[in-house]
């Protein structure tokens, strides 16, 4: 039964990912008093791209074609660590949050290589900037997760979630607030949202993620876009699971799981609304202010780790 729930959770994260993008785009449009496209639009875009042909630069190598696959499978594997409706996950194991962060790094590694393989200046530009952002984001990411792990005395995400579920909602500690703050900042940086990166830009002066995928087209682009949507959804679900898991099903009964899914939808909807408000209200940071942004995240996450001492004595 646990395996079935695990597989279902992965499927929800993977198949529901484009929907998350669609909803965020729609909410942003509404905030900007536009009508906006349908929330199902990302799916039709994926289908459209999958039917097209793949344009490959003649100078590129096998890495160019391999990179999207590596990115997709690494990101899907990340989704298999994240509890959605039940405090368990398909590949849950001790210390899996280190694996989660490093699998994201694996995907990014190959995407950057694919970008460099295109042979244009834009790919290099995107990869170089991504290198800066990602190498500085890793420390707050792991420190924030480590703080929660220490607090919960569990080294696996599912265990941390199960521990948090048993706590009183009103009994949250300073560690949770600090860790949430830093992880939310890292979330913005990792998924390439405002104020770190503008997901809708195609202006070479500002783009990071878009610069890397500029040379990709057709099915390859579809795979990349889907993978980055999965990353967005999985990290969103991770934030929900770690800091607001209440409402998750504690038993395997289908009825409880259905209720838990409703809870999940509500919480995800809230975070998506928050994200679209931030994206509409905040301007993109200048490239060299991003390290300061991540520096603040690192400091906050270090504080979170230090505060665990006060809580656990």
């Amino acid at each position, binding site marked *: 039964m646990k395996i079935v729930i695990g597989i279902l959770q992965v499927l929800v994260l993977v198949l529901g990912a484009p929907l998350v993008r669609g909803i965020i785009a729609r909410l942003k449009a509404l905030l900007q008093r536009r009508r906006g496209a349908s929330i199902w639009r990302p799916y039709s875009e994926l289908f459209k791209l999958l039917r097209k042909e793949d344009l490959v630069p003649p100078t590129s190598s096998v890495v160019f074609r391999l990179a999207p696959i590596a990115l997709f499978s690494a990101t899907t*594997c990340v989704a298999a660590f994240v509890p959605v409706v039940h405090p368990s996950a398909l590949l849950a194991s001790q210390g899996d949050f280190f694996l989660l962060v490093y699998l994201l790094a694996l995907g990014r590694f190959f995407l950057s290589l694919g970008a460099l393989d295109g042979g244009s200046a834009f790919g290099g530009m995107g990869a170089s900037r991504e290198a*800066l952002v990602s190498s500085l984001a890793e420390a707050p990411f792991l420190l924030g997760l480590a703080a929660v792990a220490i607090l919960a005395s569990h080294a696996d995400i599912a265990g941390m979630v199960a521990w948090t579920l048993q706590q009183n909602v009103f009994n949250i500690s300073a560690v949770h607030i600090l860790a949430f703050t830093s992880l939310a900042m890292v979330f913005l940086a990792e998924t390439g949202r405002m104020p770190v990166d503008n997901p809708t830009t195609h202006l070479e002066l500002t783009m990071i993620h878009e610069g890397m995928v500029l040379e990709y087209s057709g099915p390859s682009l579809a795979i990349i876009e889907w993978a980055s949507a999965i990353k967005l959804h999985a990290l969103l679900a991770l934030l929900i699971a770690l800091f607001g898991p209440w409402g998750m099903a504690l038993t395997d009964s289908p009825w409880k799981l259905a209720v838990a899914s409703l809870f999940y939808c509500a919480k995800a909807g809230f975070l998506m609304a928050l994200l679209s408000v931030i994206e509409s209200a905040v301007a993109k940071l200048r490239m060299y202010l991003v390290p300061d942004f991540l520096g603040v995240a690192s400091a906050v996450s270090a504080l979170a780790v230090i505060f665990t001492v006060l809580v656990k004595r």
Partner: protein
Amino acid sequence: MQLVSIGMGFIFLLASLGLFAPVVLMMSQAKTTRVFAIALIVGSNVVGCFVAVLCFWRGSDAVVDLSRFTPFPFALGLDRLSAFFLLLICTVAVPVAIFAAAYFDRHYHEQRCNWMWAFFSLFLLSMIVVVTASTGFAFLVGWELMTLLSAGLILMEGDSAERRHNVFIYLLMMHAGAAAVVASFFLFLPYSHTLDFAAIRAASAGLPVGIRTAIFLLAFLGFGTKAGIIPLHLWLPRAHPIAPSPVSALMSGIMLKTAVYGFVRVAFDLLGSSPWWSGYVVLSVAAVTGILGILYAMAEHDLKRLLAYSSVENIGIIFLGLGTSLVFLAHDAPLGAALALVAALLHAFNHALFKSLLFLGAGAISNSTHSADLNELGGLQNRMPVTGAAILVGCCSIAGLPLFNGFVSEWLTFRSLLAGAALVGTKAQVILPLMVGILALIGGLAASCFVKTFGVSFLGRPRSAGAERAQEAPLGMRVGLLLLAAGCVCIGILPGLLLRPLVALVQGLVPGAGIPEETLSIARIIPWITVFVLGTGALVASFKRHKRMARTWACGLPDLSSRMEYTSTAFSKPIRFVFARVYRPDRRVDQLPGDQPYFPAFISYTYMRTTSYERVFYRPFVDFVVSLAYRLRRLQTGNIQVYLLYIFLALVSLLAFLRFQK
């Protein structure tokens, strides 16, 4: 029976590396004898691997005692720790020798080539002596030979003034380090009366605190110099890049590990327990070493210098594990100490594999393109597909990505740091978990650095005619590279193969340690992750993607040229900009003619990244030594009467000393 075969195999290994191979090489210049000698070197190292594995299995000691022929006790023995490092040396030596067989022939004339192989063989022997020594004398003999032979191998490549200067710095720092190592061994003498390791171990419980502290610090300094911890790494980025590639692979892959071995042997085995603060000292030095090492690597565009700095970084990660282990030991937590030590030793093994792979790869690249400057490479993946695939595996491993071996050891280090949170009520409770952030920063920067390394050299368009005309590396080189790459993937996917024996080894060093749960859980989960990732990958790859060649969009220009691509220097610019305080570059812009600032005919731009502590640290020290030497010269008047006076004064003072001692 097994004991006999272990002994015979070990003696065969020593004899063929130390005697047969060099003698055969010196006797004849014929190609067949050289091939025979190479086969002997490769074969004896394969035997060495079996000896090491057998020894591990039995967990008993095999000893070769030569004390009857030497002035001081000289004995070699194989306990589990020695066997592990013997395995490390022999495993790496086999592919490196296969690679070198193809490499040396192309780069050197007959006679030079034979000398190279003789030194190569003796260099391997000296490192084997270091890790299997069971007396201090044998250890120090091996230690010194190792330095001299590697310096000889560097000088055989050429003898320009710059090379000599670099070798001079190398020898100078090695001997300063060796002096510290010798001193740390000799401090045991008044208590153990002999340099036999067994006697030292027995006597170490009765050491006074002061002596114990001094031994620890001297060993850390001495072995740290050899390992290249910052700020004692000055020689490393100078000596490693100028050696021939297979020798760089041995120096970076294995020789640095002998320093790790020495530190583990002294700090964990011989000394028994270290001062309580020792772990924190090692941790802080390791953190600085790791971060600065990878930042300097990031700024390099010479492939071999980049790899040398990345060795500094990896030594930082290894010492992070060792420091954590010492902290756990100081707080009487043997389980955590065992975990951290396993992580450090595994990382030493992994680093030996992937760093020698990458150095050999650098050799294959410069063999094909005649350049090791990243800014002149590019587009090699289509021209050297097999070499490229092997180097890609090396880059993934060194970046610590899952499914490759570097990840396993970094994961274990992370887990041991996280386990520090359980030391409730101590400083370690905060310090160790905070180190997670440091290691994550190192890991993140390393990933970026090796995206740059592989992406700029192998992908995109060629940036020079040499890269344009590059050919696939010859068969011998490819076999060497692929063997090492296979090792990286094998440990990355099935870490249990090496973890189980390592746990057994560490349990011998850390008394009272059980089996750390973490080593079992990583061995259990990684194969599943592999299946999941590869399965998903296969599923996606099975989706048919129609391919059409189309030129990269060039913003309306006719076509892109390689000058429009990002170079290595451009790639690292954002990180160099953010960490400008660390690099402290010297920039100089010269315009000619100088009196016409608005119409310069010629502009030159020089960028020198001097290491700040070279100025802050070493310059005053060197100046001080030189001025002291000048002052001491006044004593050397050249006048015989004055020298007689010195002798007389020395005699009087000695007599006075003896008189007043009683």
